[in-house]
């Protein structure tokens, strides 16, 4: 297992009263993504716990693409991953943000 953390700057803060959102499931080739509002001085903080070691560079690339699509600030994203592919990770991240911003839970 490997723990990875990333931080992104320069996004737009979201309403702090927004409800957290959880999508996905911790199953083989899948992941769960929890998105929560949190005062982080404008940062978007991402923490990943993944079963697959040694993929830090790929996570970095996938998350940079994600942040380019969704410029979030004051948001904490927590991920539990069981070897999801980059495509699945991107899909879940988009789904999580849609659920979070849409307020659907």
């Amino acid at each position, binding site marked *: 297992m490997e723990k990875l953390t990333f931080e992104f700057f320069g996004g737009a803060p979201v309403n702090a009263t927004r409800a957290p959102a*959880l999508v996905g499931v*911790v*199953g083989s080739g899948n992941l*769960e993504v*929890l998105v*929560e509002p949190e005062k982080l001085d404008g940062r978007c903080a991402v923490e990943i716990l993944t079963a697959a070691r040694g993929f830090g560079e790929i996570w970095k690339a996938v998350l940079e693409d994600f942040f380019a699509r969704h410029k979030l600030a004051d948001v904490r994203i927590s991920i*539990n991953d*069981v070897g999801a592919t980059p495509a699945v990770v991107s899909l879940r991240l988009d789904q999580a943000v849609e659920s979070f911003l849409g307020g659907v839970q």
Partner: protein
Amino acid sequence: MTSYYEASARERLHALLDPGSFHEFLPPTDRVVSPHLVQLDTPAAFDDGVIVGRGRLDGKPVLAAAQEGGFMGGAVGEVHGAKLVGLLERARDEKPAAVLLLVESGGVRLHEANAGLIGVSEIMRAVLALRSAGVPVLVLDGGQFGCFGGMGIAARLCDAIVMSEEGRLGLSGPEVIETTCGVEEFDSRDRALVWRTVGGKHRYLLGEADALVADDIVAFRKAAIDLLNIKPDLSLEALTAEHDRLDARLKRFGACRDALDIWSALGIEAPEKLPLLEADGFRAAVAGRRA
């Protein structure tokens, strides 16, 4: 129509209860995760694979839990079990109209060994204590992973079980039987065999499931509402009657080699056609024939 089978545990709960009424206890943001999986270098889920909380069903207050089969087959670990036990014990204090258990579990989470086993035994004791206190416990079983092992026992300790054809209920799961007794005894890859042995239709015919519904969350909701008035009966008379019923069932069907033999013995015409029927047609075809 929303498939119960395809939905996640969280989606099932939200769609089953009155809209907007669900309030989760120990939500994922609390991060009450398994302390064991981390030691085994395995990612844990923020809710440990079970969602517990309160809500309303047809306006009446209920407590409800849903197991997520996608996380470790819905297996009961220490935290998962404690959340279920806590919900059942809370119900003894709050006296809701019912507790709903949306089961989907392979049983004990073997990674957590004794902690999981103890969790399941505590669930069983809590179910019986709650029923003794007069609060009915209703089971809904229609998920992808079925309900087996310790959770299969726990389910049968409850007041009523609602199943879809897709739901499965048993003690040892098909793959466990094949592994321990051989493929000649039970071929777990023979889907028709698996479903006619542990599937919802057979459980309904044997009298173990009280309702057989279509794979539709709304149908599960209606069946649960219909069962809200059920009165738990743990009296000696009721238990003796249940044992007599099981004894008679064993005498009647004990020599059968296949579920089809039992369906024939029940007097059902063209039993081989039962797996093909939709829920409504199936209930009509077997009316008055259940064991």
